């Protein structure tokens, strides 16, 4: 019987890393959105916060697109 422990370890490291990374970046984006509301209430424009939020969500979107690429076999099996 063959158990591929290193593949199992890879799955563990990759999935914990990606999940924690994406959720943390998304959380930073949400926090920036909340900061934008605070900025606007304080008379500011909130543009800086909005830019930060959009950057975070864009990073998440890249991971989303890569996930769809992995799910749809036509995109990577030729």
């Amino acid at each position: 019987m063959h158990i591929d422990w290193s593949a199992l370890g890879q799955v563990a490291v990759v999935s914990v890393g990606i999940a924690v990374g994406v959720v943390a970046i998304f959380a930073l984006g949400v926090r920036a959105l909340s900061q934008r509301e605070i900025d606007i209430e304080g008379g500011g424009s909130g543009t800086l916060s909005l830019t930060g939020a959009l950057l975070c969500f864009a990073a998440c979107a890249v991971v989303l697109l890569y996930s769809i690429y992995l799910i749809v076999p036509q995109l990577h099996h030729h």
Partner: protein
Amino acid sequence: MAHISLLIIVVIITALAFDFTNGFHDTANAMATSIATGALRPKVAVLICGVLNLAGAFLSTKVAQTISSGIVNDKLATPAIIFAGLIGAIVWNLGTWLLGLPSSSSHALFGGLIGAVWVGAGVNGVHFDQVISKILLPAVASPVIAGIAALIATYLAYRINRRAKAGPVTSGFRHGQTISASLVSLAHGTNDAQKTMGVITLTLISAGALASGSNPPYWVIAAAGLAIGLGTYSGGWRIIRTMGNRLTDIAAPQGFAAEASSTAVILSSANLGFALSTTHVVAGSVLGSGLGRRLAQVRWSVAGQMALAWLLTLPAAGAVGAIAAAVAIQGTAGVVVIGLVAVAVAVAVYAVSRREPITAGNVNDVQPIGAPREALSTAS
């Protein structure tokens, strides 16, 4: 198409019936947390999930050339044995659905086939080393990995937003959830509909209706996709309630963390060739997201029931599959008897479920953790 016997038609119908139970059993995996947090209305959630499962069936060209990924010797699996294995899987799926227990549909199918092959073709037809490395190991490891990921992710999500305004945080994570839940649905559709396509295709090959090594015919892909899509849309509300509300109380950031963790584990393991159960992964993530917020927020009694159901899935579906095989290999009369018994079981399970129906309307009506104990019993 060559001559197709009545038995082959019965196997195809049974495979599609299994596909349907697979769908309604696993809607919870993708949608339970989104429904629980209010990110998606229940009916909308199951519609999205159903459509994406159907789409997933058509998208995947990764043709299932084996029924069981090497767990049993496919060459020994006659149509009668496949039929018996499917019956074992369906009966277990219906029983766990009645109890609202999220258990793995893949394990039910493997268990049913193992039992049926064991009795129908002998113990040598079962590859037990594959059972350990392909079923048992991932079943233990995947929920732990998903749980750790969700725990850390949830903790960080709350930590990062502890001084943020509640409104944007909730709405932001809810929007994120609709996307992450859709991703889980799509991944599910590309994987699970394949199992049924594989079963039907190999049955047709064994009957000589298709050349060996053929891809699934178009009608098989469409039928399998429709069966799992309709099953998903019908919504296994009992299981959705357990996964989304009874295991732990879930807020939007937790739901997003749980779904992101599930997706990460499913995709990274598919890439490395581990066949794992979506159910196990998602349950691990949901538990982790409960622990990541406040350590005491998990209903361990519910988690314990689920773990017990997981342990029993393989042997229980195997036992039913074995009994069914013993009768079905006797010939047409045996198959008819088993088919009638299975229909009777399905009708009985449905009748019992109507006594305390759980629907899109009341799926979220569960007392929060900390409510009086007697109130909790209404959920069971």
